[in-house]
Each structure stands twice: as structure tokens, then as C-alpha cells.
């Protein structure tokens, strides 16, 4: 009366199970170590860091470094804290993600459902743009932004990130829509829906999973970008990443490590937030029932 094997490769006796869990736990702790160091040191007074152990829990708990990093720390020449740059980043990342995702979806729709002569070549070229290194784009892009009068502005940064992200978003949506049954589009055509109505009423409502993937990808990339941010932004349009660098670099005298740690966590929070929130909507099976599988 032995139980049917569950089909795992290794035997799942008690000892093996404990061994696996202990190993996983050790690795998890190891990977969490940097986060632990950052969190712990961002809530202790500077004296405890310079005079003691980086790994130790704070003797005196304080949120002062966080407040300082947010609103009063010296960034470059101004004691503004990271707040205005955080806002810059939000103002940049939200439209850039929205525009590049929407355009990628439209591109994918056209490339799969409204095929035309040369569409595969065009798609190949767009795919190629994914592999162009950032550095190659810098100088032509600077010139272009200058000509458009967008140099050193947040809209300029949005433009750069939309252009650079388009290759990826198109790739994602094209591959998603390639598996999308063309009969649905034909049925909608016969029903009288036009190009945009088919897109907004049929395709977009069924694009949840790929939209989430694209948004996570684009948000993370654009938020974390440093090179474009430092190359194309002016004093007033610097994104968070550049400001964080300035915070760390510009401190005169004693380095306020606790403030730096707090600032770094602040800079990382939005991507973490997007991942946790939208990851929950990353569900499969939205296509179920459209056609017989």
C-alpha cells in the first residue's frame, strides 16, 4: 500500500526535505544580506557606522537619515534632498512607459494582423534596435534633442526612452499577437469593427499578461537608467539615479553613509513597488475559451 510517487526526481524523504530547505534558507539569507546591511545602516546614527560594526543592529533607532535623504541632503550644490528628482523620475517614467507600451502594442498588432510587404524586414530592423548599445546613440541623440529643442528637459528624456524601448515592446507584443487567433480579427471585421475598434475592443482587453510584462520591463529599465539620464538631463530635469550619484559624490567632509543608504533604498523602492503590485496581475489563461484548444 505504498503511496504513488509524486514524480519528483529526488526521493522526498524527511532527511532530503530538511536538507533542501536548509540549503535554500542559507542561500536566501546570503542574497538578502546586502538589503539587510542597507536597511540596518539607514536607521542608525552615523556614529554607529563609522565607529562600529556594519552588520550590527542599531543601538539607537532613528529615521533621521531617511528624512534627510528625502528633503534636506545636499544634491550637487542644492540642499534639496532627493524629492524633486524623485518627482522628475516619476514625470519621466510614467509617460515613457505608457507611450512605449501603447506604441509597441500597436506595432505588434499591425505586424501580425495587418501584414504588408516588407513587414518581416521592418520587424527585423526593430529587433536589431534592441541590440544597439546605449553609447552609440548618445551623440546623434544629443544632436537630435538639440534640434527638437528638447535638450535638458523631461520630455526629451521621455522621447529618448520611448525610442529606445520601442524595439523591445514591439518584440513582446508581436510575439504575443502572433499566437492570437486571426479568426477573431476576421470575425470582428465581418461584425463591422474597424482597425482601432478591433484593437481596443478585442486585442487590448486580452493583452493583460503581456502588458504587465512590458510595463515591468520598461519601468525597471527607464527608472534605473543612468547613462541617458546623466547625458541628456539638465539641472532641473535630472532623474533619481543621477541625483543619487550626486548625493553620494557631493558630500563634503564626513560621508553620511546612513543618508546614502536611505537614499539608495528610496531610489529602488518604485521598481520594487511596480513588481509587487503588477506581478499579481500576471495571470495566465486569459485566452481560454476563445477557440477550441
Amino acid at each position: 500500500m505504498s503511496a504513488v510517487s509524486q514524480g519528483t526526481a529526488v526521493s522526498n524523504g524527511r532527511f532530503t526535505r530538511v536538507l533542501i530547505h536548509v540549503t535554500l534558507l542559507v542561500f536566501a539569507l546570503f542574497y538578502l544580506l546586502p538589503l539587510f546591511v542597507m536597511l540596518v545602516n539607514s536607521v542608525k546614527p552615523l556614529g554607529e557606522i563609522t565607529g562600529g560594526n556594519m552588520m550590527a543592529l542599531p543601538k539607537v533607532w532613528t529615521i533621521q537619515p531617511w528624512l534627510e535623504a528625502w528633503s534636506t541632503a545636499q544634491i550637487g550644490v542644492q540642499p534639496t534632498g532627493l524629492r524633486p528628482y524623485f518627482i522628475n523620475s516619476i514625470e519621466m517614467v510614467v509617460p515613457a512607459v505608457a507611450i512605449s507600451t501603447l506604441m509597441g502594442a500597436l506595432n505588434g498588432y499591425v505586424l501580425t494582423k495587418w501584414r504588408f510587404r516588407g513587414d518581416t524586414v521592418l520587424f527585423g530592423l526593430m529587433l536589431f534596435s534592441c541590440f544597439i548599445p546605449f553609447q552609440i546613440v548618445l551623440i546623434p541623440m544629443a544632436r537630435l534633442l538639440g534640434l527638437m529643442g528638447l535638450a535638458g528637459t523631461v520630455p526629451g528624456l521621455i522621447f529618448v526612452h520611448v525610442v529606445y524601448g520601442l524595439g523591445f515592446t514591439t518584440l513582446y507584443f508581436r510575439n504575443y499577437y502572433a499566437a492570437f487567433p486571426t479568426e477573431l480579427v476576421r470575425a470582428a471585421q465581418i461584425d463591422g469593427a474597424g482597425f482601432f475598434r478591433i484593437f481596443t475592443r478585442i486585442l487590448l482587453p486580452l493583452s493583460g499578461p503581456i502588458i504587465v510584462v512590458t510595463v515591468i520591463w520598461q519601468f525597471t529599465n527607464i527608472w534605473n537608467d543612468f547613462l541617458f539620464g546623466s547625458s541628456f538631463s539638465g539641472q532641473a530635469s535630472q532623474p533619481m539615479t543621477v541625483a543619487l550619484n550626486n548625493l553620494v559624490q557631493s558630500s563634503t567632509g564626513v560621508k553620511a553613509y546612513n543618508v546614502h543608504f536611505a537614499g539608495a533604498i528610496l531610489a529602488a523602492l518604485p521598481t520594487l513597488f511596480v513588481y509587487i503590485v503588477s506581478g499579481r496581475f500576471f495571470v495566465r489563461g486569459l485566452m481560454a475559451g476563445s477557440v477550441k484548444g
Partner: protein
Amino acid sequence: MGFLDIANVTKSYGAVEVLHRVDISVAEGEFLVLVGPSGCGKSTLLNMIAGLEGITSGEIAIKGRAMNGVHPSRRNIAMVFQSYALYPNMTVAQNITFGLEMHGVPKPEREAAMTRVAAMLQIDKLLDRKPGQLSGGQRQRVAMGRALVRNPDVFLFDEPLSNLDAKLRVDMRTEIKKLHQSLKTTIVYVTHDQIEAMTLSTRIAVMNKGYVQQLGTPKDIYDTPANVFVATFMGSPAMNILPARVVMQDGAPHAAVIDAAGQTRHLRFSQPGMAGWAGREILLGIRPEAITDPEGADRKSGNIQHLSNTVVVTEPAGADTFVTMTLSGRDVVGRMRADVTVTPGQSFGFTINMDKAVAFDPDTEARIAP
């Protein structure tokens, strides 16, 4: 001029012509089935009627209005797809009314039309469900509801039953036929299943390799197939085709065939005109149901030929028993009564109803007689 006119229509992809000069005129209320093996061009033709594929040359007209270049939504047609193509993000009700909404029909009218169709197809309990929550047969009904609600001039069906299991397919077939009888709509229906074609249609177009091989009523197609392809494609089991020589005996043309023992046997023709083929080779076509045991022979036939031959295989199929013999080197299947007693290897007295025989030219494979 018919209700739906397909005149001299061809379709080419680049230099390759996939559909050659199709000419079909469909009258109002007719049920035309396009049948053929995969790749014969039947779905392409249907898509051209729907406007989903362009017409290379020729003209398609509905109610006398040329449809070349007219957008699918402006042809007043409705289509049921093989995969049903229900919008998965919408409920059954939204699926059915989407087309009306796109055509700007006011909401109360949409609701009324939907209620009427839902009641007709018995899907009124499913209106709030999503397609993913429906069974195959229910999805099929919704797909038909979506077509019916538009009240179109022409219904187009693209292999609508091929995704259903065997029993459900037969039920839905009957329902489609009932629907056609009560609504008297014009239907063009594509299938590769010859039984669907026979049972549903008022006329059949048998297609192969981009040509319409024969256009006619189911009885025409079955009894007087235009060529060997049509003869063997329609009917199950397929019509037996065997080489034979036409010989004159007692002043009447006979088909000379060779039995399992190597003896030449003569089967008298009752078809006129066969005397002209005396001395020449032909292909003789005999349907399995024209080869029976003596008790099962058609009493109304004026020309029953007896032939004793060795039984090769017997296949009891419940209602009938299929018995195979060898004639002129080919396996020839006969359809016997279920309770006939035959065993493989024995010599058995077959009766052949030569009234139902068909002769084909061995070179062109076209029908010579009847």
C-alpha cells in the same frame, strides 16, 4: 442571375493560381456545400465571398450588387468560423450583439434581437457567461447566434462542426438543417466531410486542386459523378473503381472483369451508349450498396448480374456487413445485410446491380455513362 453569383472567379498568390475559373450561381434559400479535400480551395472561395481575401479576377455579386472590393462588414453576410472565434473577453450576450453595436443599432433593438436568437438556439440561460465557461456545443450555438442576429443575406459556414465530437456533430448537423428549413436563408457551407455535404445541401460543389469538379444536387453527384475523383470522394465506403474491357455478347455490351480465380466474367451493361466502347478498356465504378447478397438485391433493378467469387475479408459494422472480394486485381467492397453468413475464403454468390454502375474513360477519368 442568382442571389449569390460567383462568375469566372480566380485567385492567385503571386504567379500561382490556386482557384481556377469558378462559376456558381446560388439561388435564394439554397444551401450550397463546398466540399473537397484540404487544400482544394474551398475555404479560399468562402473567404472571397466574405471579403476576407481579395478576388484576383472575375466577380462575386450578392443580390446583383458586385462585391469586389467591398468591405466584409458591408456585404450583409455573416460567418461561422471553424474555431467559433468567439471574443473571449466578452460575455455570450456581448458576443452576439457586438456586430449590431458596430453597425450602430440602438440598444433596445439589439436586446430584442438577441433575446429572439437566444431563445431560438436555446442559449438564453448562458447569456452572462464567458466563452471559456461553455462546452464545445454551446460555443457552436453562440457562434451561430452571432451570425443569425445580423439577419444577413448570406450565411457562410467554414467547417463549423469539425471541432465537435462525433455524436454532437450529428446532432448539430440536424439542427443546422432544421434552422435552414425554418429560416429559408441562403447558406454557403464549407466542409471536407462528404456526409455533411450530402445530408445538408440542396446543391454540392465538389472541389479539387482549385477546380470545381462537379456542381449538382446531392443525388446527381452521388448517382452520376462527373469523374473518378468525385465518384471516390463522395460516399463511404468509396465507390469501387476497377479496370474492365467492354465486350459485345449476344448483341449487348458487357464489362469483362477477372475474378479471384483468374476467370473472365461478363457483367451486362444497362447503360445506353456502351456499345460504342466495344473492345476498349474503361474504368467500371460500382457503389458498395450495389453489390449485395442475392436476398439483399434491389428488386426494382432491371439488371441484376450474378457473380460467384472468393471472399477476402468480412467487416461486420452492425447495420451492415462489408464483404471484400478481388475483381480485376482490385479490392471490391460489397454491402450486405447484417445477418448474412459469409466467411473469408469461401466462394460466395454476389449480386451486382448493374443499373447503378458508372463507366469512366481510363485516360481522362471523366464519366462516359450513364
